[in-house]
């Protein structure tokens, strides 16, 4: 089964994934129209700021076993088998925030949602775009990512690619050949770090 894989070293922090996510979870599924919706559609992927202002697209890992699911008081959090996705039943959720204590990644938010019951704040998190996947579309955040920081692939294939990259990097003569998988991103991140350090302030 394909999953969304995050490659943080390639994230430039453009936040397009957030916009695409909010749009995909709006009523109208159309950015200009979604801006007029109330409640305003919100993203379920969150751009975190790293130590040196590098971006990090943080989203639900759909853990198994899922700590949020184990502590959910009303039993609103469940695993959807077809897409192997942890979902929240919007009718059952009581917005108690017990899952906020459980999620080690901090990816659950609490607000009224376009797709939830009107007027009621609920816990909202990534749903792996199951609705889009059902229509043979890939998750919106991956579709919009221009940098390859988010990919949608088999976990095995992704791991193999990473292993191969690592093998090339440590193989004999790699340094002379100047092997770097993403030189542009490394340069960008080095620049960000230098800026932070030169400014003498923390990010």
């Amino acid at each position, binding site marked *: 089964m394909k999953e969304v894989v995050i490659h*943080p*070293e390639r994230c430039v922090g453009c936040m397009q994934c957030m916009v695409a996510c909010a749009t995909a979870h709006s009523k109208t599924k159309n950015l200009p129209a979604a801006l007029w919706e109330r409640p305003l559609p919100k993203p379920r992927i969150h751009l*975190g*700021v*790293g*130590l*040196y202002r*590098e971006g*990090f697209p*943080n989203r639900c890992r759909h853990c198994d076993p899922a*700590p949020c699911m*184990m*502590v959910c*008081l*009303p*039993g609103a959090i469940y695993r959807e088998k077809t897409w192997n996705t942890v979902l929240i039943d919007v009718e*059952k959720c*009581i*917005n*108690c*925030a*017990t*899952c*906020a*204590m*459980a*999620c*080690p*990644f*901090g990816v*659950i*938010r*609490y607000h009224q949602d376009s797709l939830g019951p009107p007027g009621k704040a609920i816990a909202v998190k990534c749903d792996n775009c199951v609705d889009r996947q059902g229509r043979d579309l890939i998750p919106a955040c991956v579709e919009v990512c221009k940098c390859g920081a988010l990919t949608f692939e088999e976990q095995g294939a992704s791991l193999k690619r990473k292993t191969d990259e690592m093998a090339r990097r440590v193989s004999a003569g790699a340094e002379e050949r100047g092997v770097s998988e993403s030189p542009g991103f*490394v340069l960008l*991140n*080095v620049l*960000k*770090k230098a800026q932070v350090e030169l400014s003498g302030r*923390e990010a």
Partner: protein
Amino acid sequence: MRHVIVGTGIAGTVAAESIRRLDPDGPITLIGDESFLPYCRPMISMLLEGSILPDRMAIREADDFRSLDIDLVTGERVSRIHTTEKRLETTAGKTIPFDRLLIATGANPLDIKAGRSDLGNIFTMRNRRHVEAMLEVLPDVKSALVIGGGLVGLKAAHALIGRGVNVTLVEKLAHPLPLVTDRKCGGVIARRLEAMGIALKMGMTVTAFEGDGRVREALLEDGSRVSCDLVVVAVGSGPAVPSMEEDRIRVRQGILVDDFLETDAKGIYAAGDVAEAMDVVFGLRKVNGIWPVAAEQGGVAGMNMAGRNVPYRGGMGRNVVRVGDLDMLSGGLVNPPREGPYEVLEEEDRRRKTYRKLVFEGDVLKGLVMLNRVEKGGVLLSLMKRQMPVTLPKERLLDPRFDFSQLLPGMQSAVTC
């Protein structure tokens, strides 16, 4: 292997399922004195408030137990556990033998020591029955007195004010939620409660009740009186240790269990609010009477009962409370002693209405309090639960923008390579 679980709360329920996963054939009996299907105890205040119907509280359906071949016995109390003969007796006169036993009997509400506390309309609030009894008399209630400003008291007060009842809240200590939050945050919560119309009397106790048949008035320590036609006693709870040969099983605050949640008697385990198990923050055994810990312990105890040796990594006290538009999340040691190896970091942002306090011992997080913007509290709690040394500058953890990515060592090396 014949498994018997006493207590149909979350610990018992999760344990039964956990045993079944590893032992497909062994008979499992889950027995509890409540007559309902396992339900979500923390939600009883919502029943009092009227914001949910009782059917929403069930955490499992009868079919869930049938499909796992778990024999669920409700409405039957265990009167005695014979630890040497490995059998137990119920009040209905049944004798049930076991090879492995889990005691997950939860806790009982503590009673108040005050004159005439036997009057009518004085309730404790621990289970669904208690709330149903309150709901029966609620139509005639105009003013209520809640004794105890802990989580249960706060939820009761909140529910009753929502029902249009005048509420007075009495707490012995100086601020609400004295055990799960600090003075500063407690003060903010107190002001919020008052804004909701709840009359607060902090640092105060009730000495006696008056009335004829039913309670009419409460007498406070300072001599003042509060008229009330309903009293909720929420002064804490204590482990509901069942009757058994106690010389074989050590009981301190709760039933003492080892790293595998097994008691002193081989084959007998304890989990949930009744168990005194390891606490990772304090590094000693302690009762942590909260839902998430009960669920964790139930799962681990179940695996051990089924023969898989799974050590319990230890629990940790943690709570999240919502009072109106205020969110408060806390965990571990929130009020460290002045003397001691602790370092306390605090940051308040009045404009954003946030407050954060972190308690460190060396580089290890030992406690935290967060007011508002609590959604990433789990990141800090998980650092604390693993007792991982924090290698970042500690102040970073105070920043509401603090993010999971800052903990990734990989990110730092990706930047430097």
